[in-house]
């Protein structure tokens, strides 16, 4: 049999080496650079200058940023809660349908999920503006005498976030609820629990991983999708994402922008840990 020592290691080396090299250069390095940038000072002609300092992090505590962060937090929390309240019953209904019906209906959720978010946000303009569909409907039904000016308000941004991110909540919830064994629910009913009890004590805890995943997929992006306030909020509302964008492009304060970015990464890490805890209760080991 021909000896082919060469191709055994070569392919493996190339595959592993190639992938790792790419990830190190384009994922690890950039994140480290941003961390470094957050510790630098603002430069005159350059983007970054040398004196290393924690000034930028100090500026994060200033009323300017703190206000933006708080606003974003409130919006994000609100959007997450709303998506959860809206999405959970929907996912539940979908997951409990007869097996044959599910694929098509699921596909109908996946299509908006994949449609360009920018387009979907733009589409909301048509609904929300003064001469838009919503007002037309409300006026037509006689519920209003004057059109609401919804566009360019914080409410519009809230609706925009919820609308864009709803599928991101529905899909993990669906996946989690689908795995629920209906016999568990029957057993609970059999043992005397009423519908509400069954829901709180059985359904919710067992679908906690899905809830955690969905919330994470809505909460974090809510801080960052800067085009939503740009299009729907008329730049009156600022998300942390807008703030970062401004620091990098308009204000040219890269250290500050980087610091805010690091903050977001920290939030992401925190959420990831929380989610891991929720998915594996009672300290089970979460090894793959």
């Amino acid at each position, binding site marked *: *049999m*021909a*000896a082919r020592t060469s191709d*055994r290691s070569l392919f493996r080396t190339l595959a592993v080496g190639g992938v790792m090299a790419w990830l190190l250069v384009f994922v690890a390095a950039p994140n480290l650079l941003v961390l470094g940038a957050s510790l630098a000072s603002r430069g005159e002609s350059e983007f970054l200058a040398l004196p290393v300092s924690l000034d930028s992090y100090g500026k994060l505590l200033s009323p300017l940023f703190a206000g933006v962060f708080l606003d974003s937090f409130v919006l994000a929390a609100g959007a997450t809660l709303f998506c959860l309240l809206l999405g959970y019953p929907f996912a539940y209904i979908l997951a409990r349908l007869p097996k044959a019906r599910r694929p098509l209906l699921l596909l109908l959720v996946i299509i908006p999920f994949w449609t360009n978010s920018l387009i979907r946000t733009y589409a909301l303009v048509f609904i929300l503006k003064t001469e838009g569909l919503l007002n037309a409907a409300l006026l037509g039904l006689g519920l209003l005498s004057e059109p609401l000016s919804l566009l360019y308000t914080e409410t519009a941004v809230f609706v925009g976030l919820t609308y864009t991110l709803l599928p991101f909540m529905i899909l993990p919830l669906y996946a989690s609820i689908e795995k629920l064994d209906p016999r568990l629910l029957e057993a609970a009913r059999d043992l005397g629990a009423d519908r509400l009890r069954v829901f709180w004590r059985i359904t919710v805890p067992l679908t906690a991983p899905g809830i955690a995943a969905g919330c994470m997929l809505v909460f974090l992006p809510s801080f960052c999708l800067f085009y939503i306030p740009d299009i729907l909020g008329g730049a009156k509302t600022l998300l942390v994402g807008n703030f970062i964008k401004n620091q990098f492009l308009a204000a040219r304060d890269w250290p500050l922008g980087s610091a805010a970015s690091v903050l977001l990464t920290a939030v992401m890490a925190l959420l990831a840990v929380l989610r891991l805890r929720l998915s594996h209760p009672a300290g089970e080991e979460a090894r793959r």
Partner: protein
Amino acid sequence: MDGHEAIVRLSGVAKSFGDQNVLEPLSLVVRNGEFLTILGPSGCGKTTILRLIAGFETPSSGDVFIAGERVNNVPPNRRRVNTVFQSYALFPHMTVAENVAFGLRMARVPRPEQEARVAEVLRMAGLENLAGRRPRQLSGGQQQRVAIARAVVNRPLVLLLDEPLSALDVQLRKQMRSELKHLQRQLGITFIFVTHDQEEAFAMSDRVVVMSDGRIEQTGAPAEVYEEPVNLYVARFVGETNILDGRILARDNGQVAAVVEGVPCALSSRRDVAPGDAVKVILRPEDLLVERSAPEGGKVLWLPGTVEETVYKGTTYDIAVNLDVGKRVVATEFFDEDAEKIAFAPGERVFVSWIQGWEVVLPDGG
């Protein structure tokens, strides 16, 4: 072909995964051209031995030799052994012919020769008409033949079979047993077969290796292992056993004077037992004799007891007896329509003995 040269040799081979010792250091010699079966319960390490020979695992200590060459660091694709997997592992996206040709293709065998050898093997396996089919279109038995054909076409030095018959139904299993045996004889290749089924092992093998918990308990021809087990574990694993307690009184070459269940008698044993030793006397059901009355005299002991139940099995007839000394034994006799003693009834008083010389004496604690 010399049937005694070692084609595979394991020397002091041990394997652990983390802190779990799967194989204690063991040594094994596989003779060229033999059908060897490694027999043992799940988890005893028999599949690990196979994988060590195939090259999918490396030993934690010790050496593996194939045809005299140390292969510890040789990867599986360069060893002249082939494996038939329990799940068959047929490539789903290739036809039967392509599956079978795969090994030849890897060895860069010229096309015409490839086709010829594949055709020959398919004919031998009765698969000529299925050459163009995909694995999912085949039955379990057909898939299994393809798996064997795919391995055998490469003319390996050794063929490793990992419980290949376990997914088949009983009839097919029996049929495949004799087919595999014939195939091995025909090809002259060494087969190393792994199973937990004692009957299967005995039906096909030249030699059997009995394993438990990562250790080899005994290696030998089926008859040897059955009739002269080296310890209680092997005795129990390879067949039904009746065990009586005894103590050695004196020894005179092959003849031993002992007290068995309180009754003096003579035992034959070539074992190294000394006066005063506690022993176990192992008897197979077919070794036992059951009589309504104890014949007078003789060196043979007769133990009294009560019949608990009798089971008619067609060819044979099982008699379970509760001995007065407190043990339960089961005797098997050939069903003889003419014999009077057919009708043992539950509750009847009987005497149990055994065919002299058929007993196996083992040191207590063995």
